[in-house]
């Protein structure tokens, strides 16, 4: 997959491919670590909050996750199992998202090299810009595939007909049903929605960074 970072763009002799690959590899590992930590922590915290705030006798909707995360439940033991699952999901998501996002790095380097004026002092304290398009493709693909996998897991288990909670997604994703075809329709819609949210995220982030840079200089 590393070679895709370079293959997607016209080769430039000035750029050391090995250096790019090593950088992408390192960042993938670090991003996976960060997301694993945060997802794990979030699962632990949400389960504990749910455990203590859900009135006795009422069903916590987090229990629905048990269908996809074996061993998980809204309980003290389940919170720790959930933390492990969160860490695994976070790590896998981190790898997938960064690897797809990294395909834009070669172009970013080329753009930077072609820019006429670059202040050398910027090299020491550069702030990352987020590219909405590759981020949208990465996150969009991840959530779309997740929806297809989750829905078809219910279909394979034979509980599609009883999956009222999953079917509620049709309120947000018209045409979605707990079936193979429905999952594809839902996945396509979810991809578009996620892509748009990523554009909003990157647009806001880059604007704030620009504003802060303007204030400093």
């Amino acid at each position: 997959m590393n070679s895709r970072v370079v293959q997607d763009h016209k080769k430039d002799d000035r750029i050391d491919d090995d250096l790019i690959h090593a950088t992408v590899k390192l960042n993938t590992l670090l991003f996976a670590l960060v997301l694993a930590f945060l997802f794990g922590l979030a699962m632990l915290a949400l389960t504990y909050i749910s455990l203590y705030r859900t009135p006795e006798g009422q069903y916590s909707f987090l229990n629905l996750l048990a269908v996809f995360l074996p061993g998980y439940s809204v309980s003290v033991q389940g919170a720790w199992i959930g933390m492990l699952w969160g860490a695994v999901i976070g790590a896998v998501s981190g790898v997938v998202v960064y690897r797809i996002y990294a395909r834009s790095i070669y172009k970013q380097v080329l753009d930077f090299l072609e820019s006429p004026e670059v202040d050398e002092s910027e090299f020491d304290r550069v702030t990352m810009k987020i590219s909405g398009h590759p981020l949208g493709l990465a996150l969009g693909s991840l959530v779309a595939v997740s929806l297809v996998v989750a829905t078809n897991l219910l279909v394979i288990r034979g509980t599609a007909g009883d999956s009222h909670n999953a079917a509620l997604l049709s309120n947000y994703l018209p045409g979605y049903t707990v079936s193979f075809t429905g999952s594809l329709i839902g996945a396509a819609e979810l991809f578009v929605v996620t892509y748009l949210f990523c554009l909003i995220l990157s647009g806001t982030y880059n604007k704030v960074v620009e504003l802060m840079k303007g204030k400093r200089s």
Partner: protein
Amino acid sequence: MRKNEDADKVVLMLGFARLSVVGMSISIAVVVALFIFMMTAILLLTGDPGDQFMGDNLKKLWVFFPGYTVSMAGSLIGAAYGALFGLIGGFLIALLWNLTHYIYIGLVVIRGLWWRMMAD
């Protein structure tokens, strides 16, 4: 036209660029707030009021967002909580991303110094 050494610098610069903590916090806060607001608003606008399951799971968000209900007022309350959670999440993502890079660079520098010392 820039030279090879510039290209190496640019690759390292982009690879080790820090995430803006303020930018990440604000942008994730905006996205999460918008997401919760839209989830509630869309359900209110398009959901079937006769459906016994409508909003069944969404209204349980009050466990995490006290005061939240599936209503227009609730969508604003949910958006406010979403912004708060987003701020915390964005802050942590940027902080941890920058921290892991600082730790890595620190380790590389220490290793370099160690090998130089051993060579001397």
